[in-house]
């Protein structure tokens, strides 16, 4: 199955949501296609591809539409899984499409002391941030994977570094990493 591709330097793990403004014609076409069919792929355009999968993308569904004051289309998209893209083609509108291959992400983990703390801290971030609350209308999910993934998306580090956590086996490292930044030392 081919999906239209939106290249964007953003790190979006499964169940992560992001908001996009779409004003280029080819990407308006993409939205049209995506709503009729099966969503689209956000190709993470990290400069250093060696650290993660090559052509790694977030396969997203459009979960919300709006227009901003200028009448520009605003969409909220939610990642349903990570994929890699191959067999790229370009259509007449210069929109790219690619075949997708599913990429496994972290297996489900249970909360422990640390992730519970991180969950509370994350909840506070959400409560203080109208945009996040707006986007995550289906709510805050209090489970370990979700909490660590959302923290990683929010933390101010390079995209290239974040890409390491797209790896299926990176949960432990991810948890430790977030913990080292968010939780007090002792």
């Amino acid at each position: 199955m081919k999906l239209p591709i939106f290249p964007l330097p953003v790190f979006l793990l499964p169940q992560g949501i992001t908001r996009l403004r779409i004003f280029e014609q080819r990407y308006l076409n993409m939205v049209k296609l995506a709503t009729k069919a099966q969503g689209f792929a956000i190709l993470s355009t990290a400069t250093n591809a060696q650290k993660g999968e090559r052509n790694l993308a977030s396969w997203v569904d459009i979960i919300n539409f709006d227009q901003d004051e200028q009448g520009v289309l605003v969409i909220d998209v939610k990642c349903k899984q990570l994929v890699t893209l191959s067999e790229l083609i370009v259509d007449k509108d210069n929109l790219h499409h690619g075949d997708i291959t599913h990429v496994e992400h972290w297996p489900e983990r249970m909360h422990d002391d640390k992730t519970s703390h991180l969950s509370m801290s994350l909840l506070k971030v959400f409560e203080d941030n109208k945009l996040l609350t707006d986007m995550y209308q289906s709510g805050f999910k209090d489970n370990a994977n979700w909490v660590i993934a959302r923290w990683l998306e929010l933390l101010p580090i390079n995209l290239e570094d974040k890409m390491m956590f797209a790896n299926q086996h990176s949960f432990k490292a991810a948890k430790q990493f977030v913990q080292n930044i968010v939780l007090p030392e002792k």
Partner: protein
Amino acid sequence: MMAVRQINLSVIGSSVTPKAMNDSAEHQQLSQWLISVAEQRDKLAFSELFKFFAPKILRIAKTKIGSEAQASEVVQETMSNVWRKAHLFDAQKGAATTWVYTVMRNVTFDLLRKVKSNREDTLSDDIWPIAEQSAADDELFEDHLASNNIMSVIETLPENQQQVIKGFYFMEMSQEQLANHLGLPLGTIKSRLRLALAKLKAQLGADHD
């Protein structure tokens, strides 16, 4: 070629002196935003600039170029250059609007040149935009800023630039926001981030999970 250039110069030039811009408070605000972008890479200030200029540029470009898609391209290119070149703006030398519209004019010329030369690389892979570096960058501001003001080394921030031009909403926290949220000094946050990354890299070098 010169004729085309002249025509567009005058047409674009005449329509980009917005009446609303007589307001000096607005002038100052725009300059301030440009300076914040230049000095602090301030994304909020850039959003404001984007909100102010994007619709205007789009409207002008649409009437001058005709093609909706190319007009959008002008908006993206212009705003992306504004983000990257904000440090070249000098409030002493002219209004923020003049500067931004100069950037736009250059972008428009480049685009018209490309269209004219009927380039073969219409399928050029902008899907990897990071790899693309505009060779024409250094010439961009000759019109507005004296050549002695053009920096030889141009700072490029492709990641941010891409976020900005694609209209990505900045979900990621800034270091300042994170510091506020955790009630810690910015310095502490910076060193925590640095240390955590160093540890992570050491760890990933040693094993996987």
